[in-house]
């Protein structure tokens, strides 16, 4: 009798416990080609930056043609996001004023972000339409205008991560 009750208990437990596999096997394997076809998100060390390069002078032409209508001829006028900082990273601290404009030169902590964002989302009316060389060139022009590189500095996969961004040292991670 006891044995019988025990058997029933085991049976009930077995029936009520849900089996869960380690692996469902849903989905299909992503091939190396499929992964490579996706434009990489570029981290601060520059991993995934494509071949090619850009110069300030090429960027000047490209910016005027594809960016200036939204961001202004010199990057300071708008009407949309101001890209060129009107001051340096050591102007009056951001926490002490409501008027200070945040732009690449005084607020952005990594130069790689400039390339990544332009490539993925700009120009606003034709995202993804720029060649890698155009993106490198516009990045170079913006960094130059923000006084972060000199006029002859060439931007490519090796040089972009080396550009020193003054705001970098201001960043702290929230303790949430």
């Amino acid at each position, binding site marked *: 009798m006891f044995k019988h009750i025990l058997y029933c208990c085991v049976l009930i437990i077995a029936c009520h416990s849900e089996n869960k596999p380690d692996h469902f096997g849903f989905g299909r394997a992503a091939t190396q080609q499929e992964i490579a076809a996706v434009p990489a998100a570029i981290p601060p060390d520059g991993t995934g930056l494509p071949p090619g390069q850009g110069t300030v002078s090429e960027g000047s032409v490209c910016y005027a043609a594809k960016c200036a209508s939204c961001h202004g001829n010199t990057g300071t006028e708008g009407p949309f996001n101001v890209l060129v900082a009107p001051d340096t990273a050591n102007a009056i601290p*951001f926490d002490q004023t*409501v008027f200070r404009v945040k732009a690449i030169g005084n607020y952005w902590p990594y130069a790689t*972000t400039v390339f990544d964002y332009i490539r993925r989302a700009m120009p606003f009316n034709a995202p993804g339409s720029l060649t890698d060389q155009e993106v490198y060139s516009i990045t170079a022009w913006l960094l130059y205008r923000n006084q972060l590189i000199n006029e002859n500095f060439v931007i490519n996969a090796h040089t972009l991560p080396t550009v020193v961004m003054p705001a970098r040292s201001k960043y702290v991670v*929230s303790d949430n």
Partner: protein
Amino acid sequence: MQEQLSRRKLLLGGAMTAAVVLVKSAFGKMVQTGIPASTMDPTKVQGPLPGPLGSRSPFEQPQRKFSLTSSQTPLQDLFGTITPSDLHFERHHAGVPAIDPNTYELMIHGMVERPTIFSLHDLKRFPAVTRTCFIECSGNFRKPDKETITPQEICGLTSQSEWTGVMLSTIFREVGIAPKATWFLAEGGDAAMMTRSIPVSKGLDDAMIVYAQNGEAIRPQQGYPARLLLPGWEGNTSIKWLRRIEVADAPFMTREETSKYTEPVKDGKIRQFSFTMDARSVITYPAYPVQVEKGWIEIQGIAWSGHGKIAKVEISTDGGKHWYPARLQEPVFDKAHTRFRYLWQWNGQSTEIMSRAIDDTGYIQPFLKQIIADRGIGTGYHLNPVTSWQIRRDGQVLYQPEKWI
């Protein structure tokens, strides 16, 4: 069917209607449907017959308030805690993409054993979970400098839905994420290809990939056909139209987590990865533009916290001198809008009413001056101050503007 159609015609033809509109019937034909005039006795006239979709009463017209980049939920028009899907706030950076669910794919790669592509059908085959929580934009505060402003305009970038999908931890187990992985990139399939870096710990805790909202497929404005859902975290991290997850061992420092969604704090610092939404509350009744009468008033509103459950909401009806506990509507969910109510007998004198939320970590919703003292006047994002309303002698309710500087 034919018989039913003719019956409908007959009925409508014989009914007195104040207005007639054309609607598409279940049979694909345009038929007239009447909107009864308010002066008519509805017990003396047949109403419209059942149809494929319901609709709001023509007397109810809640609307989002929208700009080029966002739309705000009309908090003052809502009851309970669920936001009707068509009133859910929107914030997106390049419009709403049109994605075909039949060709939709989610790729997961990087530090995983098995880089995988999931179709929507694949995602739906995994064990599903349903939970109710809020999504709030971390920019959900306008610096109001006028009295004539509604709860919607002050903080309408928060909404709540019942979401259904698969736990991200299930997906991570499926693809086998590397033990050394600490961050992952989530990328949207919109024209901004929105990206955010998220700690793997959140992914293993309560993150979900959701495909349903309030019992049906997610709306395009909320991420159709599938989005990331990070309960309690700033809305921008719950990437909509999720198309790619890349598992890594460091954050990618995307534009949205550096130049945006960061806030200046004391000593010239810039605070980054402020993920959690702190506790907040707002009185949604009485609030501008209503006018109240002397006597009993049930003050009500919503409170929420990204850290956990709302433990308490306190009400002051004398400008902050005394505080009394409001009733919380059960059940109180984790990281969710919670309805509070407080019965008050107004004596007709001018006063100021306000609410403050306290969550189960003991955190107390601050006043604006406390936030500014803590972070500096140049701060932004994650602003959750106590909101107060003036009650004038004539019953008019007006926002009490806060001095920023």
